[in-house]
């Protein structure tokens, strides 16, 4: 006879669900509106999405306030876990989404934005990521991950070009494999500990002193493979360049930031307790991953001829760079990771938006790809403002001070230094130097060569609208004056990460 279910609303703490529910409600609303009146302009959906995301953002502030006062909040049968990491990650996810969604307001009409489903899926995806980061239950992580991923595959495919489909299929197939890895890994953890809650897994493993270390490692291996895919660590990165190339620039930029931060949060939750309990193997493996990912993707980025593809490799490299924080595992490193990602978001938002602005509806048959380097040749002469902005973002990506990403690099390398990873710090530094080459290559094309296409410069701004310009301007300001907001940001992040035990 089953005991009556007796759960108080109080202990459910439904408030914890609010941030995820808001985008879901928004998505549903958009679908409902479409039911009543179709063929509405995309600007409506964009603004609606922004409104809901703003609300989401506001609720996050509320959660942040609660966390600051009372520490970690659990809810919904202790499945939800609202700690500092979750809050910061959601801030990044929602904030970045807010900045990316206006990119839909292009001058040229693109197929996908005429469907309201696009925006609904977008909002679903956001809530999926939010679930992913605000739980330590492997089931919910899986659900969040897949919700988001499936939405993302569709969004990519909606770009409706041959390459987009190819990209979506590739991404999807590999994602399915990764999902298999993930579930297998979770299964082993479950088999070992009888739990799918990360903190309980940790507690059990701690209690039996890692007696089954071999099996733990196998589980970790599967998890690594799965998240390695999500984070595009070498050799699980192969999808990234193709998907970035196939997806629209706006979507590619989005992908370089949001899915990865969600994955980073899960990885931090999952791996850091292992590292702290002295699983040397994991540390070594992560070390190898970090170095391989940074270096190999850098080397491949050197030889790219397409800017978007180059940026894809560069994103892989940045992910590898940041992955080192997970390996180091100190509060400083984790804060550095989050700080880096915020700054990276600004810079990548800017650079991908620039590509998006210059994206013509139909690729010129003569050009080998949408964003070949040649397209940008002599940009300073035809469109100096564009060139200056693009140059700025490239410099930031290369880590030239005082632009945004430099500070992230600085803090991250410092965390390596502080934890005694001298060689790692040097490798990180040298990789930045290698990376400098391909960013410079674009600058060289823009500033030092003569134009080859569209002497009037119009081709570079076909998509330009006020909202896109605002976004780029916003990204530029964030990139240039990063130093002004780094201190509060750093203090905030450090406090939250520290209070969550990371």
């Amino acid at each position, binding site marked *: 006879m089953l005991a009556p279910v007796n759960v108080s609303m109080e202990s459910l703490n439904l408030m914890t669900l609010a941030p995820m529910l808001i985008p879901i409600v928004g998505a549903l609303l958009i679908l409902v509106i479409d039911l009543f009146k179709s063929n509405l302009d995309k600007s409506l959906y964009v603004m609606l999405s922004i409104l809901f995301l703003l609300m989401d953002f506001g609720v996050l502030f509320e959660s942040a306030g609660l966390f600051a006062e009372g520490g970690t909040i659990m809810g919904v049968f202790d499945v939800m876990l609202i700690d500092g990491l979750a809050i910061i990650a959601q801030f990044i996810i929602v904030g970045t989404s807010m900045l990316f969604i206006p990119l839909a307001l292009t001058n040229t009409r693109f197929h996908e934005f005429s469907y309201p489903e696009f925006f609904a899926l977008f909002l679903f995806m956001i809530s999926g990521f939010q679930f992913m980061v605000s739980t330590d239950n492997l089931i919910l992580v899986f659900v969040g991950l897949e919700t988001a991923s499936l939405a993302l595959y569709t969004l990519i495919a909606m770009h409706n070009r041959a390459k987009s489909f190819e990209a979506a299929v590739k991404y999807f197939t590999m994602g399915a494999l990764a999902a298999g890895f993930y579930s297998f890994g979770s299964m082993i953890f479950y088999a070992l500990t009888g739990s799918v809650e990360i903190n309980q897994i940790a507690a059990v493993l701690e209690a039996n002193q890692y007696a089954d270390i071999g099996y733990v490692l196998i589980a970790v291996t599967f998890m690594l493979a799965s998240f390695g895919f999500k984070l595009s660590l070498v050799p699980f990165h192969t999808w990234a360049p193709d998907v970035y190339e196939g997806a629209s620039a706006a979507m590619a930029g989005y992908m370089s930031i949001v899915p990865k931060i969600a994955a980073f949060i899960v990885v931090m939750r999952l791996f850091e307790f292992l590292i702290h309990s002295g699983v040397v193997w994991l540390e070594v493996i992560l070390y190898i991953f970090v170095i391989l990912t940074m270096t190999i993707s850098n080397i491949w980025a050197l030889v790219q001829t397409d800017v978007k593809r180059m940026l894809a490799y560069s994103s892989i490299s940045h992910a590898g760079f940041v992955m080192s924080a997970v390996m180091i595992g100190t509060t400083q490193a984790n804060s550095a990771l989050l700080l880096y990602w915020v700054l990276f978001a600004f810079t990548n938002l800017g650079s991908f938006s620039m590509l998006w602005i210059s994206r013509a509806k139909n690729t010129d048959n003569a050009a080998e790809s949408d964003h070949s380097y040649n397209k940008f040749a002599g940009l*300073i*002469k035809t469109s*100096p403002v564009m060139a200056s902005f693009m140059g700025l973002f490239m*410099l930031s990506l*290369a880590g*030239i*001070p*005082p632009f945004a990403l*430099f*500070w992230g690099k*600085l*803090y991250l*390398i*410092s965390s390596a*230094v*502080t934890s005694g990873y*001298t060689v790692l*710090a*040097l490798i990180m*530094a*040298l990789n*930045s*130097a290698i990376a*400098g*080459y391909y960013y*410079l*290559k674009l*600058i*060289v094309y823009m*500033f*030092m*060569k003569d134009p080859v296409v569209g002497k009037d410069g119009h081709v570079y701004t076909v998509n330009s609208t006020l909202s896109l310009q605002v976004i780029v301007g916003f990204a530029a300001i964030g990139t240039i004056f990063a*130093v002004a907001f*780094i*201190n509060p940001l*750093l*203090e905030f992040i*450090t406090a939250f990460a520290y209070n969550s035990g990371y």
Partner: protein
Amino acid sequence: MFDHILSILIFFPALAALFGVVVDKDSIRAYGLSVAVVEFALSLMLWFGFDASVSGMQFMEQVSLIPAFGVNYIVGVDGISLFIIVLAAFFTMIGIASLTDTKNVKNMIITLLMLQMTMAGVFAALDAILFYVFWELSLVPMLYIIGAWGGPLRVYASIKFFLYTFTGSLVMLVGMLFMAYFYFQATGVWSFAILDWYRLILPQSYQLWLFAAFFMGFAIKVPMFPFHTWLPYAHGQAPTIGSVMLAAILLKMGTYAFIRFSLPLFPDASVFFMFPVAIIAVIMIIYTAMVAYAQEDVKQVVAYSSVSHMGVIVLGTFAMNVEGISGSIFLMIAHGVVSGALFLLVGVIYDRRHTKMMDQFGGLASVMPRYATIFGLMLMASVGLPLTINFVGEFLSLLGFYEQSHIITLLAGIAIIVGAIYMLSAYKKMFFGEVTREENKNLPDVNKRELLALIPLAIITVWLGIYPKPVLEPINNSVEAVVQLMHDKAITPEAKSAIPSVIKKDETSTQEAH
């Protein structure tokens, strides 16, 4: 006004550059020049407001940037940095004044003003991160100048210049982070302030590693053998104004940083590495002088001669005594003036003939006597003739190092021989002999605009050669403070004995007086 003069000096040109975007391209030259003149006037005000008798930092400003991580905006000048700042402003001014008609002159002037900001910033920064910010940022305008206005290999040259220096500085950045971490360990506070770091005494083993890390950054910038190969390309391809800025100011960043960072932070390591560094310096001096002799392109001669002279500067820096360090700082300024002038002079002939190959010239002395005279003066300054500015620096640098090692100084002194060899033979090839080429027969002599740049340089060359006191005195006071600091900080007996105490000597001399 004087409270914030350094910030004004740093950010005024940057702001002006931004506003310059709006200025019409026909008026941009006048705009740029007036900004540069104001900037130079400001730098002169800085000089006149500077109290030469004070050895410490002056005009200090401090604003917190990232207090959580100890990064602050701290600027200040002492005798070591003051004159390089003035020189930078001066060169920006005459650089813009003498700018020849190039394409995209607007972009060039905006870039130059940006460059001026970074140059003022590097030498005024008293926070390691701030220093690093300007240090790296200075690469960008230079990259653009070389890459956009340079010769046929300009892209290769500019990327090489950028990446090479960038790589070195990243290693240096790691060193800085370690330094900050050690400071954090010792005090519990993060700080990148150089003056804070000065108070930190590190064990020798740490010093050695950190010295090496900083050395990578500085040595590539200087550039020291064997990291010098970016320089001939950069100079060879850069437009005149680029070479002038590069040689006159940007190279000095490296040697300045040695004095600002390496010596006072790591006195024991500096003494430990004194001889290796000195040997590198000697190689720079002799080897690059010989390479300079083999050149066929007059600009390359001057470029390699820069490396050779930088060797003397490095040597003086590592003399670890007041004479040597003062000399090396003075030589930085001197070399700035002279090499800047020489590059301008090469630019003069390049504008007329669009070639820099010496075999294309010959007999120019009769065609362009004024040009030949000024070139001759600068040549003599370059080979270190007494009563020209270079001699004071070279003499003091070598004199200083003589206390540390006779043999190395003797070898380094070969500079005065090999320097004469390449310079005189280049001069002979260009100016002496019969005019053999038809196109050389009617070359116009230097014009007013060029004289506007060259005459002040010639005056400085002679003036500071005869009367170096106004510059040497503030340098001396600050250097004495640095040497004393190093002496006090040194922990190994070798370092204690290698670095003389300034105060002790003063005491004994006063005792003698009693």
